[in-house]
């Protein structure tokens, strides 16, 4: 009996010590950083290796398959087969397929599942029972989703560009990338991809936290992003795609019905998206502090 009570006293003392340590601001920040990284590590495994990740790989792999097919079976005309047209064609593929559809749905899948996935798996309470501040949990999970989407969609962006250029015109492409505008274009596309993951990720994290059935807001958001070219200038700015389009290195025509607006300069677009992400994460953190788990109905 005495040994059990000793152990209990020791553990209580240890807890008191750890609490004392945690209250010091510097140590508290380092502890929170370590906790966020620990959550991130756990979540990264889920994002990359779970069964749900299969769909993400499928989405991210689509452009690579498509452009490999294009390289193997090029169309019989010059319109798409000349090097001069390649930047325009890639811009259309990037804007129409990769950015608007694949990154959008990929981010929706990953970020909405960060919390909704835990609810449907009935495992969120394990996180909530751990001695981790819920804000730290939000940051850790967001960073893990961000890492997964950035890695996969960066590979998609760069890989599809390389396949498209180098397979069809190896020597011209080598000059374009090493002596011409190719590298800067590639980096710009990569930057847009990363910003898209940051922006859409934050939106879908919030949607996953606030809505029990996030499909309806996701569908509405998709519609809103698609009709962005029809919107008046003020409403255009209430979307992620407007800022991303402003940063794309090869601008595309949005059709005869588009309402033309001056693209937002990069020094406004990038900080705006980052600020927006910060606000969304703050809101998510505020929401999760009051969150009560109800597994019923999911």
């Amino acid at each position, binding site marked *: 009996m005495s040994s059990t009570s000793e152990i209990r006293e020791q553990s209580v003392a240890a807890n008191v010590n750890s609490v004392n340590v945690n209250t010091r601001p510097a140590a508290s920040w380092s502890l929170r950083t370590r906790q966020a990284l620990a959550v991130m590590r756990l979540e990264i495994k889920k994002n990359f290796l779970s069964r749900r990740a299969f769909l993400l790989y499928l989405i991210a792999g689509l452009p690579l398959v498509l452009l490999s097919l294009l390289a193997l079976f090029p169309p019989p005309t010059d319109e798409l087969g000349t090097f001069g047209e390649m930047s325009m064609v890639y811009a259309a593929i990037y804007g*129409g397929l990769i950015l608007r559809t694949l990154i959008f749905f990929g981010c929706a899948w990953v970020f909405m599942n960060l919390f909704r996935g835990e609810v449907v798996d009935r495992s969120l309470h394990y996180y909530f029972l751990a001695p981790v501040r819920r804000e730290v949990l939000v940051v850790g999970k967001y960073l893990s989703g961000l890492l997964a989407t950035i890695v996969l969609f960066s590979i998609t962006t760069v890989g599809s560009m390389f396949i498209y250029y180098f397979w069809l015109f190896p020597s011209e492409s080598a000059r374009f990338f090493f002596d011409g505008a190719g590298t800067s274009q590639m980096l710009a596309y990569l930057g847009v991809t990363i910003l898209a993951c940051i922006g859409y990720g934050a939106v879908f994290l919030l949607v996953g936290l606030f809505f029990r059935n996030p499909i309806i807001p996701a569908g509405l958001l998709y519609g809103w992003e698609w009709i962005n070219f029809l919107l008046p200038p003020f409403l255009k700015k209430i979307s992620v795609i407007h800022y991303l389009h402003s940063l794309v290195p090869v601008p595309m025509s949005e059709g005869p019905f588009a309402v033309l607006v001056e693209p937002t300069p990069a020094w406004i677009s990038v900080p705006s998206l980052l600020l927006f992400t910060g606000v969304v994460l703050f809101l998510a953190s505020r929401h999760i502090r009051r969150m009560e788990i109800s597994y019923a109905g999911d």
Partner: protein
Amino acid sequence: MAVYEHLYGAYEGDSHSAWSRFLVIPRYALREVFKSKLLVTIFILCFIYPLVATILVYLHHNANALALLQINVRELLPIDASFFLTFVQVQCAFAFILTVLVAPPLISRDLSNNALPLYLCRPLSRAEYVLGKMAVVMFLLSLVTWIPGLLIFFFQASLAGLAWLWANLWMIQAIFSSSMVWIILLALLSLAVSSFLKWRVVASGALLGMFFVPTAFGEIVNNLFLTRWGHLISLWATIKSIWRGLFGLFERQTGSIRGKVTNPIYDEQFFDIALLEPPLWVSWLVIAGICAVCVWLLARKVRAYEVIK
């Protein structure tokens, strides 16, 4: 009360005839479905376009109303096959939204809560269980697609007279068949996804993704390869071809591109590339293939027990 203290007696109520047993499932499921305020709202919104179409039909035959609104009858949409094709397209798009909301939890909830043995230990076969679940979707979608479509058709016939009815009698079959093909496809697809993914939210997301991602992918394929065969990847484009076929408005050539080839011997050569839609039988084959895969998935997943490794 503890379970062992319960007394079990034989069922003494009315017994259902064997063929109608599956209807018990939609009876309870529909009660659940209409408890959702959101779904009731969307369900009501589904009737806005039929209302507009009915007003259009009415205006065509009411000279007083036309004079009052100062509209020439020639300015109104003609009430013909393309009018009803547009009706089917709009209503089937609403039907898809309803399916995304209603269908995913139908099987996934039973599977994730291990409730399937409770159904299948009763005199209900696996096929009847699936049929019952399909009936929920089919009943709801019928209410917003072919039923209002046929009502508008008969409304137009009553105003335009017997001659119009005889000349357009074939359209009854077109409205019904085009809606039913879509309804059966959606019902099978959504139930297969629901049984495969088990989680309602994930199943809804997958259903939405299966609709939008292939559509964008198909369009890019069409534009890159200068073809229209990319439409076969997109469910919406494939079904639209079938609908056009059923309404007699299908045309294989939907455009052409003036191509240019630079040849070292002949310099520049110009030629026209006809953009041909896939033949109708290929579209039917694709839809039949998707349905067959869905049935196979349902047969695999809907079991009273499963071995978990």
